C-alpha cells in the first residue's frame, strides 16, 4: 500500500529555541483517515501547517502526494485540500461564488467546475442554497460549504482540522457522515485533528498521538486500546452508596491509584496500575466502611490511551500549565 504522506525526522524550531515539532517520522497510507491527536500546544497545528506548505520545516523532510513540501510546494498544493479550524470563506459571497473562486484559483476548467460545484452541493444537500450569501447560513451549513470548498479541485488528500468544533450535535453528525462517505466513496485520504476522541475513534483507520512535538503513540484505535488493557493499567468504575470525602482521599492516597475522577455523588472512575490493584482498592474501600454497590472493569477508550500516553486529558481545563508559545505558533490556521 502506498503512502500519501511520508515524513522523516521533520522538525520545526521557533524563535527562542522552542521545538514545536521534534523529529517526527510517520506515514499516512493512501486512502486512510489518519487521526492526529494531542493536547493543545503539542505541535499538531505546526505539523499540519508544514504538511500544507504554510510553514517551512527547520529540518527533516516531508513528502506529500509524492512531492517535497519545500522544493515542490506548488505541486503539493495541487494535491491537497485544507479544511481549517477557521473557516475559509467570504460572507459577502454566495455559496456558489465561494466555491467558484477557489475552483478558479485551482485552475479547474469552467464546465468541469460548474458540474463539480453542483455535485458537491448535492452531496451535502445544499443545492437550493447555491445562490444564497454565506452570511445567511447557520454555522453547520457554513461548515458543509467549507468542507466541500476544500474538495473543489478533487484533492487526493484532505486536511480536516477540528471539523466539528462548535457545531451542534446534528451538524456534527452530518459532517462525520460526510467525512466517512468522502473517504469510502471517493477514496480521499484524510488527516483529521479533533478534540472529540469518540470522533477520532469512529472515523480514523489509524491514530497518532503527538505530545511535546513527538509522536508518542501510533496505531489503529483497537491496537492502541489493547496496549492500554494489556499493560497492568486498569480502569474501574466503582459505585459506593455512602461515598464520603474521607473515603475518596483514602482511595486517592493508595500507591497503585494514578487518578480518580468523581463522576457523580456516588460514582468513581479510578485509573490504577498493578496486578493486585483491584483487590487493594476494594479492601481499602471496605475497611473504611464503604459499601460497594457495583463495580465495573471498563474497556479502555481512546481517551484512556490519550491519558496514559500524555498524562493529560483532552479538555483544556485539565491540561496542566500550557507553555507560553510564541504568538505565530498559536495562530493556527
Amino acid at each position, binding site marked *: 500500500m502506498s503512502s500519501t504522506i511520508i515524513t522523516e525526522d521533520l522538525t520545526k524550531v521557533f524563535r527562542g529555541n522552542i521545538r514545536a515539532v521534534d523529529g517526527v517520522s510517520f506515514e499516512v497510507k493512501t486512502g486512510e483517515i489518519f487521526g492526529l491527536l494531542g493536547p493543545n500546544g503539542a505541535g499538531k497545528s505546526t505539523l499540519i501547517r508544514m504538511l500544507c506548505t504554510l510553514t517551512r520545516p527547520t529540518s527533516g523532510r516531508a513528502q506529500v502526494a509524492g512531492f517535497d513540501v519545500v522544493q515542490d510546494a506548488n505541486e503539493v498544493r495541487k494535491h491537497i485540500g485544507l479544511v481549517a479550524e477557521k473557516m475559509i470563506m467570504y460572507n459577502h459571497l454566495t455559496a456558489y461564488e465561494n466555491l467558484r*473562486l477557489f475552483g478558479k484559483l485551482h485552475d479547474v476548467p469552467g464546465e468541469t467546475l460548474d458540474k463539480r460545484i453542483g455535485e458537491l452541493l448535492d452531496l451535502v444537500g445544499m443545492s437550493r442554497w447555491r445562490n444564497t450569501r454565506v452570511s445567511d447560513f447557520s454555522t453547520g451549513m457554513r461548515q458543509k460549504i467549507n468542507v466541500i470548498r476544500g474538495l473543489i479541485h478533487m484533492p487526493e488528500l484532505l486536511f480536516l482540522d477540528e471539523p466539528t468544533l462548535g457545531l451542534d450535535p446534528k451538524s456534527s453528525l452530518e459532517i462525520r457522515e460526510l467525512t466517512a462517505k468522502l473517504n469510502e466513496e471517493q477514496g480521499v485520504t484524510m488527516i483529521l485533528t479533533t478534540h472529540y476522541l469518540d470522533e477520532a475513534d469512529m472515523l480514523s483507520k489509524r491514530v497518532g498521538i503527538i505530545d511535546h512535538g513527538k509522536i508518542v503513540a501510533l496505531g489503529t484505535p483497537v491496537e492502541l486500546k489493547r496496549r492500554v488493557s494489556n499493560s497492568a493499567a486498569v480502569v474501574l468504575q466503582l459505585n459506593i452508596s455512602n461515598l464520603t470525602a474521607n473515603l475518596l482521599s483514602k482511595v486517592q492516597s493508595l500507591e497503585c491509584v494514578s487518578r480518580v475522577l468523581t463522576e457523580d455523588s456516588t460514582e468513581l472512575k479510578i485509573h490504577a496500575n498493578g496486578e493486585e490493584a483491584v483487590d487493594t482498592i476494594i479492601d481499602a474501600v471496605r475497611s473504611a466502611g464503604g459499601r460497594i454497590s457495583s463495580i465495573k472493569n471498563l474497556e479502555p477508550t481512546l481517551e484512556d490511551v490519550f491519558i496514559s500516553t500524555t498524562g493529560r486529558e483532552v479538555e483544556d481545563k485539565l491540561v496542566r500549565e500550557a507553555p507560553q508559545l510564541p504568538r505565530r505558533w498559536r495562530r493556527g490556521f
Partner: protein
Amino acid sequence: MGYGREIWHALWITWKDLMELRRSKVRMAMTVLMPLIMMTMISFIYPSSENILNAIPIAIVNSDKGPQGSYLLAGLDAINAQTNWLTFKHASNVSEATDMILRGEALGAIVVPENFTSALTTHLYTANITILTDNSNPQISQMISQVLTQVIDVMSKAQASVDVYAYAQQVHVNPVALITPYSADSQGVVSGGGSYIEFMIPGLLMMTMIMSLMTGLPRAIAYERDVGTLSGFLVAPISRASIIAGKVLGRVVQGLIQGVASLVLAIVLFGITIHGDITWVLLTLFLGVFSFVGLGIVLTSVAEDETTAGMIMMTLTMPMMFMSGVFFPIQMMPDFMQTIAHCLPFTYAVDAIRRVMIFGVAITEISTDIAILVGFGAVMLLISIPMFNRAMTQ
C-alpha cells in the same frame, strides 16, 4: 505562456475584494463619503473672507467735533450695504467700545478721532482712525483689520483725489496718478484659480489614492490572516505574487473610485477646473500609486495583525499627509521640516500631480519627480517581494 495564469489568479482575487465592497452598502457609502467629508471639511477650515465675514458686529465711535466723521461713517455704511459683512453698533466713547469687545458684543471697533474734520479741512496733518480688535480671536481680528484698513485706505484716497482735483485742474494732471504714481498688479501664469481649494485638490487626490493602498492593503491582508481566509489563498497552487497583486489591484480600484468621486465633487461643488490633459492626470496618479506599492507590501509583511497594521499606518501616514505639501506649501515650513519633506517621496508625487493639474505642463517638466517616484517604487518593490514571501511562509 508568460504570466497569463498569474494575472488570471490575481484578477480573481481582485474580483473577490471588489464583490465584497459592492455587496456591503456601508463600505460602498464610506468609499464615496470619505472624500466628500474630507473636502467639505477642508474648505471650511481654510475659509475665504466671502463666506466667513457675515454681519460681524463692529462698534463705531465717532469723536469727531466736525461733520466729516459722520460723512465717513455714512460712506462706510453704503459700502457695507453691498456686502453685509459687518453690522455697525453705536458706542459713545473708546472705553464703551472696549467693553463691548470684552463682553463679546462686538468683534472690533472703529474710532474716528476728534480732529478728523479739522485734519480734512486744514490739510496740515493726517487724521488717524483707530481700529480696535479682539485679541482672543486672532483669525477674525486679522481679517477684520485687513478689510477695514483697506476700505478706509480706499476711502482716504477717494477723499484725496477730490481735494487734489481742485489744485490739479490748474496744471492739467490726473489727480489719481498724482496720489498713486505706481501700483502692483499680480496674476498667475495660468488663467483663473489661485484659491486654496484649487491648490489642495491635486494633492488630496493623490493622497486619497495612495492612502487607499497604503492603509488598505496591510489591513486587508492582516485581517484575512486573522480570520484565517488567507490560508485558502496560500494553500492554493498559485504564485504568491498573484495574491499580493490581486490585493493591490483591488485597493487601487477602490482608490480610483474615491479619486474620481473627489474629482467630480471638486468640479461640481467647488468649481475647480483642470488645466492639464486628463490622460496625463490619470497617468501621474497611477505613477504615484505605483511608487507606493512596494512600501505598502513591506508594511504588509511587517504588520502581524490588523491592530498593528492600523497603528503602523496612523504613525506613518499622518506626518506624510501634513509634511508633503498637500495642505500647506512646503516653502512655508521651517528649514529642517523642508529638508524632511524633501526626503519623502510623497512630496514628489504631490508636486507632480499639482503641476500637471494646475499648469498642464508637459511630462518633461516633471521629469525629476518622475525619476524619483519610479526609482523609489522600483527599489521598494524589489525589497518587498522577498519580504512578503517570507512573511507568508514563516
